[in-house]
């Protein structure tokens, strides 16, 4: 029996039975194929990882939700991927260039690329993710404005690029630049309790992984499916939006998207999912 009770001290004395009466349910024993292509949803954890096995969030979802992801036609996130394919070849900015002008066919040039971000960026002297890489191209090559955080096109373009790595195992290269110290910083953030509820990432996604938090089945909090099509929003949800959502739910002030704190967290959490297939756009509740 893995049920455990966590006593939460609440500032302000707000009674909230959030963690009371936790129940455990195992992730499903099921295999994911997207349009017949097998996905790695269970992978041996990298050295130094708290788990033996890393598990895709897909294994924690109900059969109906899992089925939508397994058929890319039914996956509404793919509507945005298709829309982004048009943006890819549409010139924007003062240089009159589109993504295609430099990169050609997205399915060739971006194959496998999204599976290995965040990457060290020498110019910025920090790691950057796909969203910031797109902005870099837009500002430096195209003469276009960077996207506003969570602009519809930013999410769609990120999903398009990551979708070209569908099935590819995720990894981050920690030997580049100062990546290791960003990993360390991300790890600190992961284990630091925040907010009135005094919760860290690890309290839910490590200590309570597999438990039911009310009606929600807690996963390992893997990032291999982002941007994710969430049934709740009926739209693509970006990783930094999800980070901020989690932090908000601890009743803490949340950092800015792409801030050092959240970029470090992205580096660390991506490492925690090493070996899982990119599932973008995954389908979640």
């Amino acid at each position: 029996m893995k049920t455990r009770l966590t006593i939460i001290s609440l500032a302000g004395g707000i009674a909230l039975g959030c963690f009371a009466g936790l129940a455990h349910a195992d992730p499903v024993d099921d295999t994911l194929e997207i349009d017949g292509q097998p996905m790695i949803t269970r992978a041996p954890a990298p050295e130094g990882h708290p788990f033996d096995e890393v598990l895709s969030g897909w294994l924690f979802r109900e059969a109906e939700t899992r089925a939508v992801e397994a058929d890319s036609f039914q996956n509404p996130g793919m509507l945005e991927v298709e829309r982004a394919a048009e943006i890819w070849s549409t010139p924007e900015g003062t240089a009159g260039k589109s993504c295609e002008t430099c990169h050609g066919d997205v399915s060739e040039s971006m194959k496998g690329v999204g599976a290995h971000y965040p990457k060290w960026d020498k110019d910025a002297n920090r790691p950057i993710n796909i969203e910031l890489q797109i902005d870099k191209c837009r500002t430096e090559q195209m003469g276009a404005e960077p996207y506003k955080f969570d602009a519809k096109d930013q999410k769609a373009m990120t999903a398009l690029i990551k979708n070209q790595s569908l099935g590819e195992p995720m990894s981050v290269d920690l030997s580049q630049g100062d990546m290791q110290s960003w990993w360390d910083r991300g790890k600190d953030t992961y284990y630091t309790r925040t907010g009135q509820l005094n919760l860290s990432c690890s309290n839910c996604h490590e200590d309570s992984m597999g438990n039911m938090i009310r009606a929600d089945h807690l996963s390992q909090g893997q990032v291999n499916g982002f941007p994710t099509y969430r049934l709740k929003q009926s739209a693509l949800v970006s990783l930094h939006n999800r980070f901020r959502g989690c932090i908000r739910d601890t009743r803490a002030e949340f950092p800015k998207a792409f801030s050092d704190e959240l970029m470090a967290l992205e580096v660390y959490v991506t490492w925690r999912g090493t070996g899982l297939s990119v599932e973008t756009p995954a389908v979640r509740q």
Partner: protein
Amino acid sequence: MTLTRRQALVAGAGAVVATALPFGMPAFASEEDTQKHIMEFTGGKTPEAGKITLDAPEIAENGNTVPIGVTVDSPMTADSYVESVILLADGNPSPGVATFNFTPMSGTAAATTRMRLAKTQNVVAVAKMNDGSVFMDQKQIKVTIGGCGG
């Protein structure tokens, strides 16, 4: 001990019934409303059980997007076919969900879509055959809210 999803729900009973609508609390439809819609659709006939099967999850992972399907047993020929199927939900702001219209060209009287459910409620499907006979199936779908994910 491993609790099933349902046991977990029962255990946390106080927490599970909720609305999926983000802002405000609109008035909900009722069983009477739904009954009225059924009678309008059937022309006052009380539907019989059988022939139609409503396929839906017992528990919806998110009320915003609930897969729902109907299948009606019919040869779908020019002489004998299903004209339409109405889908109703008795706990949404209004009971109407969709009406599927079939023809012998449909080949099979079956269709699937995705619907919104504001809370745990009954979903009703009524089929009208070309000879005027009507059949009904219904299912209760539990709608939960999650922890942080919900």
